[in-house]
């Protein structure tokens, strides 16, 4: 579903991603771990299409299409979803109207009929139950006055409504307590299907106890230096990242 080949990207002339390679197939959950500054968030932003970041080389195919040539909204409509690390507030814009507009754009792109207000509200009711989200939050402006945990849950809620093909979770666990973490992870797990995939970006192994990955990658100095099964995450938890520095330096491959 996602094929990243020798991706090079940076910001303001500073290279961050350096020949990054990654392949994700439908039905898979991949975890991307790595120390601070390794380029994890950059990868997420570049895939989503943030214009601040400059792609200087390589290619990304999303279901066979050239992702880098698409505008951010087209990538979203093609089924790419990014759960932001720091979801922004949009005062004055009602959450429900916002999400309905977003969903209908995606449905239009898929050739499906748009939902009207009644149908949409029924869908919302169903999905709020899935995530134990207080429906009252949705009558507020997008993320306005939401606590950190509520914002993260709102991201996953939007994911539940939009049903993307590929979801990228950018440090979704940061700022969450154990209970919130369980709810968020529970939501993500319930949304797993054989025809979609998830890229979980995280620092800590803890989230991966709840969202169990099929494959774990370690991103260091802008490239994937090691790939393994879920045990790799446990190993990192014990040993840290230093032992991989050598591998990174010698341009190591898994």
């Amino acid at each position, binding site marked *: 579903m996602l094929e990243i080949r020798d991706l090079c990207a940076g910001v303001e002339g500073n290279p961050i991603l350096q020949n990054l390679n990654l392949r994700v197939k439908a039905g898979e959950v991949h975890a991307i771990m790595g120390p601070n500054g390794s380029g994890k968030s950059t990868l997420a932003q570049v895939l*989503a*299409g*943030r214009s601040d970041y400059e792609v200087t080389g390589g290619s990304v195919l999303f279901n066979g299409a050239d992702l880098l040539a698409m*505008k*951010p*909204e087209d*990538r*979203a*409509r093609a089924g790419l*979803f*990014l759960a*932001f690390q720091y*979801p*922004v*507030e*949009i*005062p*004055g*814009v*009602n959450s429900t*109207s*916002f*999400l309905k*507009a*977003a*969903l209908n*754009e*995606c449905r239009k*792109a898929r050739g499906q009929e748009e939902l009207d207000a009644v149908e949409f509200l029924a869908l919302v009711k169903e999905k709020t139950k899935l995530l134990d989200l207080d429906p009252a939050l949705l009558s507020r*402006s*997008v993320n306005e006055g939401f606590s950190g945990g509520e914002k993260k849950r709102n991201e996953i809620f*939007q994911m539940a409504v*939009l049903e993307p093909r590929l979801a990228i979770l950018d440090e979704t666990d940061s700022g969450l307590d154990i209970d919130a973490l369980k709810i968020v992870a529970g939501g993500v797990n319930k949304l797993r299907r054989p025809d979609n995939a998830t890229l979980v970006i995280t620092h800590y192994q803890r989230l991966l106890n709840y969202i169990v990955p099929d494959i774990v990658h370690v991103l260091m100095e802008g490239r994937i230096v090691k790939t393994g099964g879920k045990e790799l995450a446990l190993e990192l938890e014990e040993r840290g990242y230093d032992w991989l520095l050598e591998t990174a330096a010698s341009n190591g491959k898994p």
Partner: protein
Amino acid sequence: MDSTTDTIESFVNSEYKYGFVSDIETDSFAPGLNEDVVRRISLKKGEPDFMLDWRLKAFRHWLTMTEPHWPNVHYPPIDYQAYIYYAAAKPRKKLGSLDEVDPELRKTFDKLGISLDEQKRLSGVAVDAILDSASVATTFKEELGRQGIIFCSFNEAVKEHPELVRKYLGTVVPANDNFFAALNSAVFSDGSFCYIPKGVRCPMELSTYFRINTAGAGQFERTLLVADEGSSVSYLEGCTAPMRDTNQLHAAVVELIALEGATIKYSTVQNWYPGDKDGKGGIYNFVTKRGKCAGRHSRISWTQVETGSAITWKYPSVMLLGDDSVGEFYSVALTNHRQQADTGTKMVHAGKNTSSTIVSKGISAGQGNNSYRGQVKILKSAANARNYSQCDSLLLGDRCGAHTFPYIEVRNSTAKVEHEASTSKIGEDQIFYCNQRGIATQDAINMIVNGYCKEVFKHLPMEFAVEAQKLLGVSLEGSVG
């Protein structure tokens, strides 16, 4: 918006190229203004003597006045002798059907959600007899008449209800109030007159659409609206469709009077031609609007959405004379491309326990220049006065301007005056968040701007609110910044 305005321009120009199908007497005055012209205007309209006297007095005063230049707007000098002060009804080429109308223009109408009948009326398409606006208006007039409500053109009121006109005309905006009011008082063309009798709640929203003889708003409109004791009325002015006029200067005067216990809600949506992308040829909208809360417990609310005109210069105000009276001003003013606006309000508190609310939302885009100018004046007699003002500016892009000139004058120590102001721009983060959810940038801007204006839009009557949202979207096209 560029291609749309070009299309409108060519549509209007072609109207004149085709020549006129005229069944109307073709006598307009030669350009120029002097006392003789004023007399002839009054004569042409068949006005009673008191009206002519009033006009002459105003004209003589106007001659002694100089044009003010204190607002934060720039325009080339106006040659008052170059205008025609009386023109026969504008001749229009009658089109067979909407299919003959330029498709670009139709697209704009559709985007604004303007009904087919309205589209026909605005494009000069001959309308079926059944749907003719004149007969629709007649039906409403009958219903209003049953309640004793008078709603007619100003010219008609001068002839049919002279006693009411004499009693109230100029009591809120005297002819010598300011340069443009004096000019208007001398040469006003037509406008609306409305009188709501004691205790009557006007059962429908009054709209200038229902005035018979709406051949396009005149250059110098004069409107007078009187709500007698305990009555209430909601009045809508303007429309969202882009309005073109060969006359550049529009100096209207609107006077509202609310007697004891009465309520007047006056809503305006204005989308006059803003000029080409260099700002040339747009309408100058220099308006004096003022309401007088004459009686106790009276209330006057102004709500305006100004998106058009090359220059908007107006301060709908309220004089709070009656004790416990309330004044409100809600405004969204947009300046895009090269538009300029200097707009705001004046709230003058004279009675006891009066309160006023001001919410002004300015949006600047392109190279637009937007100024809010507001005055809150608490006189010595105004014990226990309350005012809340909020003026916000939203800047789109980096070549536009927003300015605020608040004036607060308090002469009574029991007053409570609050003022809040904010300036913001739409964050790139916010736009990207919307993009990442599948919403295109222009749609995201529209959503965010509409959210910003919600506080004002919620005071508009329902149909106007929906139209206003669409209008904002159309006006912001191409403003991505």
